[in-house]
């Protein structure tokens, strides 16, 4: 006997993500899901961003790693709420893991929650966590071919940060080509060229972020 079903396999996760989203909406908290391959500079970007926007918006951070609490410790130095999730092997965060951190936050005291996903260019893109938008980092040492090889993450992201541009003189990397390739996969991407080392480009990103958070608050 054949039964036709037609069900999205990720539906259970999507449902939890929607519930998370309802809570964030109710509290007026902007949430973004920060993704990249390991070491592209997610925690570095957060450190620089916190420095620049602290005082303008109230931030909280969820750190996702397979193991260790090193990233959470780096963020805790800024005196903002941060929760470390250890996935114990899983290569991505999902809606459920985010929900499990809720009792650790006072969302009435937050404007922005950043979720640093597990370093991985594939899996995190498939799982919603209840975010307003996804932002991804590609560092210039990773190569121009990445948008075509890992299209889902580029397609799902609203923002692309091209990081480590201070290294451009030392690597065979054409930033213009990265931009071109990324825009093919997602013509609506907002792109920032940045260096977390020299600080180049970070003002534009932080301005955009603060503005996005404010707009959402007043919406």
């Amino acid at each position, binding site marked *: *006997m*054949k*039964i036709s079903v037609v*069900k999205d*396999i990720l539906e259970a996760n999507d449902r939890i993500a929607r519930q998370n989203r309802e809570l964030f909406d109710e509290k007026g908290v902007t949430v973004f899901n920060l993704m990249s391959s390991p070491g592209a500079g997610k925690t570095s970007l957060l450190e620089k961003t916190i420095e620049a926007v602290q005082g303008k918006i109230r931030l909280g951070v969820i750190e996702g790693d397979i193991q260790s609490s090193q990233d959470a410790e780096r963020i805790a130095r800024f005196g903002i709420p941060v929760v470390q999730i250890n996935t114990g092997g899983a290569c991505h965060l999902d809606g459920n893991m985010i929900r499990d951190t809720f009792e650790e936050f006072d969302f009435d005291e937050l404007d922005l929650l950043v979720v640093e996903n597990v370093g991985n260019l594939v899996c995190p893109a*498939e799982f919603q966590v209840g975010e307003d938008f996804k932002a991804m980092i590609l560092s210039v040492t990773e190569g121009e071919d990445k948008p*075509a090889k890992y299209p889902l993450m580029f397609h799902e992201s609203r923002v692309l940060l091209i990081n480590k541009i201070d290294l451009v003189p030392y690597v065979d990397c054409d930033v213009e080509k990265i931009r071109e390739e990324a825009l*093919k996969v997602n013509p609506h991407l907002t792109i920032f060229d940045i260096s977390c080392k020299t600080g180049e480009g970070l003002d534009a990103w932080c301005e955009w972020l603060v503005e996005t958070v404010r707009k959402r608050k007043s919406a």
Partner: protein
Amino acid sequence: MHEMSIAQSLVDILKEEMARHNVHRLRSVKLHVGQLSAIVPESLSFCFNVIVSGTELEGARLDMEIIPLKAFCQDCRENFEVENYTFVCPLCQGTNIRTEAGQDLSIVEMEVD
């Protein structure tokens, strides 16, 4: 390797559906795997077999059909197949595109006894 989480969600849904239809043996499942989804079919099969071994679902076959990416241009109303993951209208070069197929990962049919 997120195929393990996906295989687990799949098994959860299958068990639910089987209970709902009051059937006990699963012969096969048909999945539609969107071209954009980041799933490796072999890896999903492998994880599925690991999870169902020793359960009543053991021996069920996973049939996966890759669904090509199709899109619709909302500016010039052209329907087109997205080639090389380029989400630009081949006719008018517009980017006001709606993806029509090839993004999802879904169960479409189960064969049961």
